């Protein structure tokens, strides 16, 4: 992603038509711009989402089942104590489904692409892997938001809870929170490229997200630099207390952005190092 960025104002690439090459003009291949790349990657995700809804619906059903177990079981065990904290639980669970969705879709996607032999076609693209991976990540996050929104709606209806759902605030805070998880997904995907079996074990990491989401950021401030922890606390304030995005202290917002960017960059770096090593070991593109 350096000097070869294509001009966005030239999506058709028409200006690139090359004179003097002696090629039939009706068939002149034009270079694809980043606009075309974005369209292709997002369109593919969209097609798979609408064509195979069973995957998304299955995920929603499983998530709701776990929530029902948590809620009903909690009522039996904790009674009123649970009722007092139900808002916090709903918000935490919402963030957890988002995190798991983003993490597993990225790491599983990389695993599947290794199996299909399509990963190296993305690594050997003239665009470079970074923009492709980022676009795929964006598509996964959007997709995860859609399914988690359904889960959130059902949770609110079933428990009779009321939360502040200011869309800009919720999407911004929750979105930035799970970008850090996206980074972990890239790292896990990279490790899967190198050590195929470990990939499955890394899926267990998503249960660790529960700990991060409920990290005691007030008692142990350093936990704020862990993925999810700081964002989770902010999301609680936004959804339970109704704090708007612009009402947060700038330092909190800055930390949220820094944690998101840091883990994303770190995760991508791990992925880069892993694929570089895979190239040296000759295991990239082994089926």
């Amino acid at each position, binding site marked *: 992603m350096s000097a*070869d960025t*294509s*001009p966005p104002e*030239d999506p*058709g*690439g028409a*200006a*690139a*038509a*090359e004179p003097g*090459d002696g*090629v039939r003009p*009706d*068939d*002149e*291949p*034009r*270079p*694809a*711009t980043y606009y*075309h*790349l974005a*369209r*292709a990657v997002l369109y*593919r995700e969209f*097609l*798979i989402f609408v*064509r*195979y809804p069973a995957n998304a619906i299955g995920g929603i059903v499983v998530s709701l089942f776990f929530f029902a177990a948590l809620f009903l079981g909690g009522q039996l065990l904790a009674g009123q104590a649970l009722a007092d904290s139900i808002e916090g639980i709903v918000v935490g669970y919402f963030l957890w489904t988002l995190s798991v969705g983003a993490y597993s879709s990225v790491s599983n996607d990389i695993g599947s692409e290794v199996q*299909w*032999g*399509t990963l*190296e*076609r*993305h*690594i*050997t*693209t*003239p*665009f*470079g892997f970074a923009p*492709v991976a980022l676009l795929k990540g964006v598509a996964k996050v959007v997709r995860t938001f859609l399914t988690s929104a359904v889960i959130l709606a059902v949770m609110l209806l079933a428990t009779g809870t009321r939360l502040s759902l200011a869309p800009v605030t919720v999407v911004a805070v929750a979105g930035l929170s799970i970008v850090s998880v996206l980074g972990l997904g890239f790292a896990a995907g990279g490790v899967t490229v190198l050590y195929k079996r470990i990939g499955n074990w890394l899926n267990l990491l998503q249960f660790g997200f529960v700990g991060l989401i409920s990290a005691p950021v007030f008692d142990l401030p350093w936990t704020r630099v862990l993925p999810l922890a700081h964002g989770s606390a902010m999301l609680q304030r936004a959804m339970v207390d109704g704090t708007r995005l612009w009402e947060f202290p700038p330092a909190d917002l800055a930390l949220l952005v820094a944690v998101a960017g840091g883990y994303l960059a770190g995760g991508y770096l791990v992925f880069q190092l892993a694929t*570089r090593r895979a*190239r*040296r*070991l*000759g295991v*990239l*593109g*082994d*089926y």
Partner: protein
Amino acid sequence: MARSAASASDGPRKRDETRSADDDASTDGLTGPPALSVERLTKRFGDGDDAVTAVDDVSLAVERGSVVGLLGPNGAGKTTLIKCALGIVVPDAGSVRVFGNDVGDGRRAAYADVDAMLEGARNDYWRLTVRENLRYFATISGVDPDSVAARHDRLLDRLDLADKADTPVRDLSRGMKQKVSLASVLAGGAELVFLDEPTLGLDVESARTLRAELRRLAVEEGLTIVVSSHDMTTIEAVCDRVVMLSNGRIVADDSVEALLGAAASDAVRVASPDLDAEAVAGLREAFEVLDVDREARPPAVTVAAGGDRLYDLTDALRAAGVTVSDIRTVQPDLEEVFLERTGSDLGAPSGGDRR
């Protein structure tokens, strides 16, 4: 096909126009550097006693528009060589240039013009339709899919996939999936295409169609194709030139005709009901008898009798009272050429089974 997209200055398909002197040295007067130029390439896997040298000091240049076969048993280093050329395996030593761009450093520029169908890889998305795959992979290879829509239609027509253009790949037969995989590799307009065992697992009919299509695509689209296979039928049918690999080294590199011609041994097979033990013993005194087939009806001997020795052979047969029912020169195939050069046959894996 047009290399214009690749040479357009904006977009990621920007290419490195700087050429070094050694590129031009090996072009034999053709414009620009060769499609593929491999120099002293070496790749080892593992270390210590377990180390396997998959590619051992290989140098090779492939001219534009030619169809070159890499022939060798499993483990000979074919796939490693291809993966080094694609940049998905980093060599220990040596360099690979694709249209003059070093795959090692100016990687992205090199990627624009090269693509591959690797053995065992699905290579495409089975949940997308055939056309969606072509459009997707054209974009990934740096080509605006709308600008090559007509080309994609032509490609689908040619590969007999036009009816299936809007069918998800997972619903197609194995032979068709293989063709979609090929089409998706060609969709982005790569001009150097590696095909690793393209006919593996196909039935006889599908393999024949694919071979014919490969040949046609190479001629009509001006593609440079490197086909790797341990199946000499594919190589013989498709390639102009054959590079034989064994244990990571090149053991032969020549045109198919030249390789077959050089091996066109002087073997002559004579069949006759009169070829009894005594007659064969007589022949052995004057000629090198390569093979005796007593089970054949009528029995046959294969004798080394090239050039003028053929006249001596017919004289000897007449003198021995052998009435010839059939006489023919033995046509060698690439398998025999390989056997002759390496002492091992193509079916046997050489070295470790590292691909």
